[in-house]
């Protein structure tokens, strides 16, 4: 049913730390790998070794430059995947019921057997979290690695999303936002975790931790000037030109 659950028992999701992310794209690769080999249709690539390669990804890392009014510009790497919104607009537009939000843990999933590939859910998502697979003709999206987190065949440390498991910088955290004592709830509270596009009214579950303020003192000091006054021919030229031009 594409009615959204009024509340979910748990709110599983991710915290993404924009301060720590180094933009290595390891999460992108591990996501593509796991979700091509496991749950649902594989994530297809078209013209992979040709002139115009393109592929389906559930997680993409952008990079943004912030230019403050004073001080140097800052580069922020910005991983983006499904935010498993509480008011997920992608779910309610689905005509077949293929898109749904689970009442037990809040994960937004696509039942690929029911998907007609109309693309309306991707239109409704402001974050670009859904991509139509060009080969399978069905909508693909982050499953929060639903086939890992409950998988008792995996060692316990692997029972978290592939992107979190692989992140070498520790910039991704997985947990239950409904539990105020969980790691993700505490991190969000401590670091001022924020919503993306709050004005869209989607109430995303995933939170982003803003980059910490840079220490301005850490800027390397400017080198001392090596020549204050010009001498010889250049000095004469400087004086002569100053007289003519008045500078």
């Amino acid at each position, binding site marked *: 049913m594409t009615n959204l659950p009024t509340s979910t028992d748990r709110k599983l999701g991710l915290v993404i730390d924009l301060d720590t992310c180094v933009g290595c794209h390891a999460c992108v690769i591990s996501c593509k790998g796991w979700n091509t080999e496991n749950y649902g249709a594989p994530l297809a690539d078209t013209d992979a070794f040709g002139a115009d390669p*393109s592929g389906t990804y559930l997680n*993409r890392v*952008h990079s943004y430059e912030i230019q403050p009014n004073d001080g140097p510009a800052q580069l922020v790497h910005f991983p983006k995947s499904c935010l498993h919104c509480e008011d997920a607009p992608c779910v309610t537009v689905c*005509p077949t019921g293929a898109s749904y939000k689970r009442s037990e843990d809040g994960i937004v999933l696509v039942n690929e057997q029911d998907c*007609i*590939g109309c693309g309306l859910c991707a239109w409704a998502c*402001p974050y670009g979290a859904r991509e139509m697979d060009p080969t399978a003709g069905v909508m693909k999206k982050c499953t929060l690695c639903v086939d890992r987190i409950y998988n008792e065949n995996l060692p316990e440390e692997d029972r978290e999303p592939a992107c979190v498991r692989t992140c070498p910088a520790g910039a991704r955290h997985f947990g239950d936002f409904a539990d105020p004592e969980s790691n993700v709830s505490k991190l969000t509270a401590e670091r001022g975790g924020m919503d993306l596009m709050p004005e*869209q009214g989607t109430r995303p579950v995933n939170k982003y931790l803003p980059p910490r303020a840079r220490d301005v003192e850490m800027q390397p000091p400017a080198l001392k000037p090596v020549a204050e006054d010009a001498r010889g021919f250049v000095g004469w030229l400087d004086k002569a030109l100053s007289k003519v031009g008045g500078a």
Partner: protein
Amino acid sequence: MHPAPSVILFTALSGLGFGLLFWIGMGVLVPTGWVAFVFFTIAYLLAVGGLLASTFHLGHPERALKAFTQWRTSWLSREAWASVAALLVMALYGAGLVFLGNRWAVLGYLGGALSLFTVFTTSMIYAQMRTVPRWHSPTTPALFLSFSLSGGALLAGEVSIAIWLLALAGAAQFAHWVIGDKALAGSGTTLSTATGLGDRGAVRSFEPPHTGTNYLLREFVHVVGRKHSTTLRAIALVSGFILPVGLLLAGFSHLLAAVAVLLHLAGVFASRWLFFAEAEHVVGLYYGKR
């Protein structure tokens, strides 16, 4: 948004077909026998042809019947129900007119209302999209409904109604452009809110996630045709509404009416192409585009 030919064909043609069915159902014209047969054939070819064209852009058209299940939340599902109900009721009404020469008025009113409601459901598929500020406006249903009503009246040969409705549809089109041009800026969604980083300084897209293009850019960031938008807007207004009104005012003949219909159709296609090509999806902001 990517202007998919199948969707442009579908919304333009089925809008015309359901508009014609509305006027027949309301009893504004009551054809019988062979004349009724011709009118219903034209209306059904347009409406059903449009609906069939819309299935071409599905990844899995063989599962299309599943789209009837989610009418509680989904406008696309409601459109499926409304279109089938309208076509069935109007088929019964048409059978009475064609074979028995009888007008079953209640069936006609019901079928006419369902036909117009179908056009409304189509428009709401777009108008509900908060992610596309240009569409997320009452001007979108106004545009679809006025196009359908005026085109339907034109096809029905109801000259005096068509003149007024064509003028109204032209005005709705103008309003959709004027309001739509300010919609993205007025929505409050910017790269600052998209990244949450705006309070630190000016945010600029430094590097996209991949060197190549992707589904999101192909589907949502269509910029190629926008440079011709002023020309196409003029064509849509002049060909779709101003010239047909002029032809109808010049006096009725079947030849002039046929020319008016063709001009109107060309204008509607130009307008519908712009409806998609000019629509900016907020996901483009993440890529530094719109």
